[in-house]
């Protein structure tokens, strides 16, 4: 079947593909080195889940299913063909069901491909942008399936008998072919088979060059994905770094450039992006594609070592804009959904770092934010000496730990800036205090020694200020021998648990949803009152997508008698952001406001209570409910406040 010419062509196709991969790898090598070593088994396991199980791809239906069909319609027959080359004659008892399976798999593959084509060019969903390479890739795949079936059919047309009903599609297509004289059929077998082979070889050769580049580069990208704590940004070594953040494309790491190569423009990120979906210029897909286009344009200059000669800037040079960079709420929905595991948020933060640290450029509200953090160690700029005032105001008296007066304590209650200064969240932290008292937990607070955990500084690019705050907090906590921290703000939770270890601060950190659930299951807190009502719970991105905390708040709320839980269409790890992450809490929002969109979604469940577990979400949703003029009928409460009402 396969002759010398075919072998030569196979080798040529492999060589062309390898050449493309090498060329692109050299372009990737223009970036900065980045260590992504670590657990090989975990890396391979991740690739298997992503590729063989299609776990992220299948989240969006029906296109995920269609992609799965097409994927296996390639993998299975290709494997069989390779195996058959080695071990020729299969006994009929194996060959027949295998023939049936191949027919079905290929049939599904063709169906899937046609449906994908129909979706892209018929339905045209907003998240897809069409380029010629998309059409050609789909047509190529369809042609491979069709020629495959025609090869089979023409081959079967040379045989007679009904045992070939095991190959139903080929059998059916062979029926009309019987009308042709046999020599013609012989020619057809050869013709279709050659066509099929050459199309496959063409696909193989073109693999790294176009749309299908997501196969080699996507797999490599998934293999090299970040295995570190989810959502922890890379620290900058302030003393040794020559550039802070990324303002030139070659300052991205090689892994970050591989990200750009792996993007297949499926737009799943864009479809979920809170900024994009409220009419902002930002689209994660566009950011990746803009950076990629810029990189490809600049690469020839960089190869000659003349990066400076390339005049077009990466930021505000027609691609990524300041507006894009500052619109991101760091909700991580793009990253958690990307089938190629591209790291969008880290790139946006790197560009923010460049703007803030290298250029001192940022929206004016962020200048105020940064100065507030510098001078008073909280984002609102209330005097730092007033950090304990909430206690008298809310009539709670947690023990303030000092080095002199430092008794044994079970857990450090991290009050957080919102807990200390925000009128609304003071009440929530006071509820947490009363619940801890009720359960007999011994706990203390840092008092005025506590400073902002640094999340707003880091997410908005000010790594320098961030590291200053972190160092001071770690020093204060280590002096007190803190081991376990209870945080009521998911942003504090993220930075304390995932990022403080980067600077030597290792603590067990839990969110109040986890801690209170623990107290309930231990029987240290018991529900004694009903709370009739219908509640919808809004997940904080920093709980659901950053910390995988989805079940705990629901279990807590589920334990309240009389409370009926109504889920929003977008909930759990698929929740829609409130709009306040990534420093956006302190910035003005133009146009449609994210929090209003989310509040509408919450109100549409018919709930009379909206549950939250994050100070920013609480503020944003309260504002959103007010914007709908529903504040009289619908209350927005933190889970701690709800629990305080029903427990003893």
């Amino acid at each position, binding site marked *: 079947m396969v002759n010398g010419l075919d072998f030569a062509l196979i080798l040529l196709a492999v060589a062309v593909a390898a050449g493309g991969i090498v060329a692109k790898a050299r372009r990737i090598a223009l970036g900065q080195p980045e260590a992504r070593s670590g657990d090989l088994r975990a890396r391979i396991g991740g690739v298997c889940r992503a590729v063989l199980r299609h776990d992220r791809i299948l989240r969006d239906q029906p296109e995920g299913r269609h992609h799965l069909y097409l994927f296996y319609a390639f993998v299975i027959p290709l494997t069989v063909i390779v195996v058959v080359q080695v071990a020729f004659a299969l006994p009929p008892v194996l060959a027949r069901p295998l023939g049936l399976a191949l027919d079905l798999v290929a049939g599904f593959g063709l169906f899937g491909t046609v449906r994908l084509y129909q979706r892209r060019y018929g339905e045209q969903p907003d998240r897809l942008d069409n380029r010629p390479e998309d059409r050609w890739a789909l047509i190529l795949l369809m042609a491979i399936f069709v020629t495959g079936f025609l090869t089979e059919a023409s081959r079967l047309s040379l045989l007679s008998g009904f045992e070939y009903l095991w190959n139903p599609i080929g059998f059916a297509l062979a029926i009309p072919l019987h009308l042709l004289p046999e020599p013609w059929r012989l020619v057809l077998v050869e013709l279709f088979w050659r066509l099929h082979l050459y199309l496959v070889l063409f696909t193989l050769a073109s693999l790294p060059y176009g749309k299908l580049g997501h196969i080699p580069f996507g797999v490599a990208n998934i293999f090299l994905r970040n295995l570190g704590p989810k959502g922890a940004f890379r620290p900058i070594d*302030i003393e040794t770094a020559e550039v*802070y953040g990324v303002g030139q494309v070659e300052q991205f790491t090689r892994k970050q450039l591989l990200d750009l190569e792996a993007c297949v423009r499926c737009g799943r990120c864009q479809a979920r992006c809170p900024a994009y979906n409220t009419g902002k210029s930002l689209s994660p897909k566009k950011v990746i594609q803009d950076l990629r286009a810029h990189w490809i344009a600049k690469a020839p200059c960089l190869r000659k070592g003349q990066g400076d000669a390339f005049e077009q800037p990466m930021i505000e040079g027609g691609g990524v804009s300041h507006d894009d960079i500052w619109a991101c709420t760091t909700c991580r929905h793009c990253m958690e959904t990307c089938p190629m595991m591209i790291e969008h948020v880290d790139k946006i933060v790197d560009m923010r770092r460049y703007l*803030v*640290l*290298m*250029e*001192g450029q*940022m929206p*004016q509200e962020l*200048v105020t934010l*940064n*100065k507030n953090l510098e*001078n*008073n160690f909280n984002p609102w*700029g*209330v*005097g*730092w*000496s*007033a950090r304990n005032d909430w206690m008298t105001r809310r009539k709670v008296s947690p023990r303030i730990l000092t080095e002199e007066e430092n008794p044994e304590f079970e857990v450090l209650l991290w009050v957080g800036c919102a807990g200390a200064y925000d009128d609304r969240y003071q009440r929530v932290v006071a509820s947490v205090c009363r619940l801890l008292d009720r359960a007999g937990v011994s706990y203390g607070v840092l008092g005025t020694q506590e400073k902002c955990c640094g999340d707003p500084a880091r997410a908005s690019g000010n790594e*320098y200020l961030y590291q200053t705050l972190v160092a001071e907090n770690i020093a204060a906590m280590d002096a007190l021998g803190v081991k376990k921290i209870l945080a009521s703000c998911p942003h504090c939770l993220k930075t304390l648990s995932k990022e403080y270890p980067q600077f030597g601060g290792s603590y067990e950190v839990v969110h109040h949803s986890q801690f209170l659930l623990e107290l309930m299951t231990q029987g240290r807190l018991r529900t004694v009152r009903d709370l009739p009502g219908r509640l919808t719970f809004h997940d904080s991105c920093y709980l659901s997508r950053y910390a995988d905390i989805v079940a705990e708040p629901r279990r807590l709320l589920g334990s309240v008698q009389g409370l009926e839980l109504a889920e929003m269409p977008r909930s759990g790890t698929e929740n829609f952001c409130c709009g306040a992450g990534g420093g956006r809490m302190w910035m003005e929002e133009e146009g449609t406001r994210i929090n209003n969109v989310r509040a509408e979604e919450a109100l549409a469940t018919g709930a009379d209570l909206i549950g939250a577990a994050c100070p920013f979400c609480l503020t944003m949703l309260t504002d959103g409910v007010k914007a709908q003029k529903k504040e009289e009928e619908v209350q927005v409460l933190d889970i701690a406040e709800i629990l305080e009402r029903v427990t003893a």
Partner: protein
Amino acid sequence: MKIMVPVRRVPNPDVKVRLKKDGTGIETEGVNFLVNPFDEYAIEEAVRITEKSGGEVFLVSIGGPENEETLRAGLALGAHRAYLVDLGGECYESSGIADILAAVFKQENPDLVILGKQSVDTDNNQAAQMLAAKLGLAQACFAYKVELQDGKAVVQREIDGGLEVKEVELPAVITADLRLNQPRYASLPAIMKAKKKEVKKVTPADLGAEPKNRARVLGLSEPPPRKAGQKVASVDELVDKLVNEAKVL
């Protein structure tokens, strides 16, 4: 153009001020100090002028060794060098401060002095005016906009009920109001560079200054604590209370 910018180290204005027990001053223990916010506008304006048309900006801060921190923060905003006048523990009122600033002026002969309209700690709003008087220079205070033309400065200043446009001959003393500009946020390379910029440490004697205090603080006292408010049930009750209790109607 050479521009002199005096900068003041002030206690963080957002933190509640506590008085020393003897009432002679404020408690500085545990208080963080910042660059006087009005002086940041002055630095920004001076730096913008030199960025546009060349020259240099030098800062002057009067106090103790701790003022170096204040000066480094100012240098990070783009000033080129600085003087730190160490008073060796002495304290001076506006007039004494103006004496020292005048001595620095005479050494450096700048074309322009820009400083904050007042420092947010004592709120005296006098040093600039006294400095202009001691040097016999023109002054334009509370600047909203500054434009330089050869040998002159055209200053728009905010006055009650409007703007006044004033032309002053250079050298002159200009004080910055908060609408003069939007001070920049120092970049990290600028902060690093500021660590290496020259800070010349001098004493009043080195400058040939003989500062004199012509006023003296006798004592400080806290405002009386605010009394708790009252809630009233109706407008009638409110009017009744305003008429009969507060006796303001």
